[in-house]
């Protein structure tokens, strides 16, 4: 069964996203929330790993309201914006939800 991973810390100061990316399986998804949204910017320290994960078929999402609040506009390709409705839907599509904080 697959897992939804949420990450709420910025990869510029914290290694949660890096750890998450190492443990992510092919069927999993990652959702960047709160300060995790900083992980979606072009200069993200995890930009390469995120693109690789995406190429492996792992869905990468960012909570749009959190990105918007922080002024983040130019996000990495292959990162899909979503809202709380989408967050709930992702939770339903995956058996487990692991929060990296």
């Amino acid at each position, binding site marked *: 069964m697959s897992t939804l991973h949420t990450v709420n810390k910025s990869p510029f100061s914290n290694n949660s996203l890096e750890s998450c990316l190492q443990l992510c399986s092919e069927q999993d998804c990652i959702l960047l929330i709160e*300060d995790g949204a900083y992980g979606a910017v072009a200069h993200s320290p995890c930009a390469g790993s995120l693109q690789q994960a995406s190429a492996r078929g792992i869905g990468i999402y960012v909570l749009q*309201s959190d990105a918007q609040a922080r002024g983040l506009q130019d996000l990495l390709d292959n990162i899909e914006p979503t809202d709380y409705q989408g967050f*709930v*839907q992702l939770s*339903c599509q995956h*058996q*487990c*939800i692991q*929060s990296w904080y």
Partner: protein
Amino acid sequence: MKFTVVILGAPYSSAASYSAYRFCRALLEQGHQLARLFFYADGVHNGSALTCPPQDELDLQQAWRQLITKHQLDAVVCIAAALRRGVLDAAERDRYAKPADNLACEFNLSGLGQLIEACATCDRTVTFGA
């Protein structure tokens, strides 16, 4: 689906409480069931009846209370975490001979068994960390 939501952050101090609140609202809007809210660690401060946020800011505790009342949610504040952090109901106030209690009436103090029971019987458990 049946959800258990675990909240580990206090309002204002971290974004966890707000994210959890928005998530809960969305899942209820989609017709899912929220089996239990479990407030743990610093999340117990969500149950305080004494917060006075500035009038021009979101009153997150008030928002939680309205959501709990509207949907008749089971909102459990972990008793061990709450006692350590000074969040008390009337019974604990008396037991520890404290001068006041401060748990809002929409919340109940109870043990970690409530988390485990919810977790064991629901479809999804979502944690909001601080």
